């Protein structure tokens, strides 16, 4: 059982120790194993190949021999990390500015998306808004219509909340494609990000204007060229919607709605109207184009679901994931992200054998509501073919469905709200590919 890439094969006692802690088929190891491993003195297992391969004297690198560059005003990532970028399409010639860029989930760790890598979805480009001229108008079924400047809102009490944002069309390529397309975790699932959003509770502003009896919805529009509009039931608007002014501590980025966006926690991203300029309190939804023609789900019987707001419970393994290559046999960490628009994540299970057997992954005990959760589990890969899957359960008891179960619910034309289980096939050579399983 020689490792064909580099390094030493596992010693038989190490291998037996690992397999004794197997919690599901095809090499998934108990999350408690690593602790036990170091106590047993077998901690060298993971790094033994490196020690064996490189026995020469260490030399001191050039950057340790001369001063580095000066402090700077606005920082950038290392030039050696320059490949970590959003996955952006070619410009749209017919409808300029319309399109999406995706977060490279497979190149990131933790749960917070850096602002420069937060996914984008625009319906008529990113406006360059002068905050001094921008206005938020609150009107309709209110006692007193009001106008707020950006400066006004900065003076209001704020709240900070960590929340995921997911486009309703995220992962849609896996929903209806006849065969699984070649793709990475980012290219397939990257219309998903998570940030700390800080802003003013919408309820504070609605109270100031005074919501009239009989009002039941708000209708909101942006100041972009598309003047994109969405409707939100009033009870949600009063519950937890914020007018977000800051994203991960700095003013929200232009592509996220600078100077302000309506952030609607847990709901399909399109509802979180960017460049927010109008909130009209009404007694019914406006039935905007993006809640009738789009962002509705066609069913097999010709009916359609409308105003489907919360994003379903979902997870995806980000490593190993599509287009990666396992270059080493031995112990790996399977890791990924889980989230739900209906609460927090209670459980994530992982399978390495295409769903025949499952093991619980490690997640933080204290899960945030409507935020990304990172999960992890050790995996011993010895060169056998594998199909890696993850399955999330949320605090409301919703369980992520299989792809087949999801597909059966809808017309093949529907690509919204796909939350089926992702399968990554690992070949004997270590290639990882998107598959339907």
């Amino acid at each position, binding site marked *: 059982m020689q490792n064909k890439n580099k390094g030493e094969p596992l010693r038989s006692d190490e291998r037996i120790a690992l397999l004794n802690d197997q919690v599901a088929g095809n090499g998934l190891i108990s999350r408690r194993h690593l602790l036990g491993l170091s106590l047993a003195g077998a901690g060298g297992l993971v790094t033994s190949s490196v020690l064996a391969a490189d026995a020469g004297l260490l030399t001191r690198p050039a950057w340790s021999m001369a001063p580095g560059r000066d402090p700077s005003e606005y920082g950038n990532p290392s030039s050696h990390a320059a490949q970590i970028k959003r996955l952006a399409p070619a410009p749209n010639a017919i409808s300029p500015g319309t399109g999406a860029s995706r977060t490279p989930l497979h190149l990131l760790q933790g749960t917070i998306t850096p602002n420069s890598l937060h996914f984008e979805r625009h319906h008529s480009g990113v406006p360059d808004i002068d905050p001094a001229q921008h206005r938020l108008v609150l*009107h309709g079924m209110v006692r007193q219509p009001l106008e707020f400047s950006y400066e006004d809102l900065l003076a209001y009490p704020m709240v900070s909340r960590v929340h995921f944002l997911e486009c309703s069309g995220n992962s849609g390529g896996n929903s209806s494609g006849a065969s699984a397309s070649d793709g990475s975790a980012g290219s397939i699932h990257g219309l998903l990000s998570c940030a700390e959003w800080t802003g003013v509770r919408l309820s504070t502003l609605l109270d100031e204007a005074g919501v009239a009896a009989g009002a039941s919805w708000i209708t909101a529009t942006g100041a972009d060229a598309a003047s994109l509009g969405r409707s939100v039931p009033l009870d949600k608007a009063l519950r937890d919607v914020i007018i977000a002014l800051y994203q991960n501590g700095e003013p929200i980025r232009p592509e996220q709605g600078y100077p302000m966006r309506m952030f609607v926690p847990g709901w399909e991203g399109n509802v979180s109207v960017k460049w927010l300029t109008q909130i009209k309190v009404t007694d019914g939804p406006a039935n905007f184009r993006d809640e009738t023609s789009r962002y509705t789900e066609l069913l097999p019987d010709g009916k359609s679901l409308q105003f489907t707001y919360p994003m379903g419970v979902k997870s995806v393994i980000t490593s190993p994931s599509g287009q990666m290559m396992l270059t080493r046999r031995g112990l790996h960490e399977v890791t990924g992200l889980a989230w739900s628009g209906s609460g927090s994540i209670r459980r994530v299970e992982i399978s390495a054998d295409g769903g025949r057997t499952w093991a619980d992954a490690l997640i933080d005990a204290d899960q945030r509501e409507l935020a990304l959760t990172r999960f992890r589990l050790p995996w011993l890969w010895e060169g056998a073919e594998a199909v890696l899957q993850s399955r999330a359960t949320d605090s409301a008891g919703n369980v992520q469905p299989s792809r087949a179960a999801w597909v059966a619910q809808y017309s093949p034309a529907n690509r919204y709200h796909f939350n089926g289980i992702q399968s990554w096939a690992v070949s004997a050579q270590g290639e990882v590919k998107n598959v339907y399983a």
Partner: protein
Amino acid sequence: MFTPDRKRVSSRFKSKALLLSLAVGGLLSVSAVMAADGPGLGKPIDESQLQGWDLIVQPDGTGLPEGSGTAAQGQAVYEQNCAACHGMKGEGSSGVPALAGGSLTTTPPLMTAGSYWPHASTLYDYVRRAMPPLAPKSLSNTEVYQVVAYVLHLHGIVERDFVLDRASLPQVKMPNSGNFIDRSQVQ
């Protein structure tokens, strides 16, 4: 003399609003309590100032402006502003939706305004706020009535001389209107 009067009216109105919200239910009364949260910096405006700015049109016609148009009038507007992308007969093109035909029973289904959209008001609302992509909000209210009438005519929903206006538009029955299931209570 004027100021105290206004104050009295204002406070009476506020307490009436508070009582009203208490009567409406827990949710609104909670929000009334939270009103003390903010510094109250909103500048009062009048709905009349929003004429021409507020573009929201609801299915019952709320928000529709004055004016009218027919498909016959709309053909020229369409050919000048829309046909380059949507096709001379509304057939659509790569990445651009068709504005004629469509069916939910074909494989794959072709979801158009005629085969899919539940409300005619959405056509008016969307065309006025977002079309054409290179010059949104450049059509007059009358031109929007005309071109919406033309698109409805391409779908066979209205006759060529049907007069579309704020009274008739909400009455236009879209073929797929009965087939949407409202899930807004699932939160």
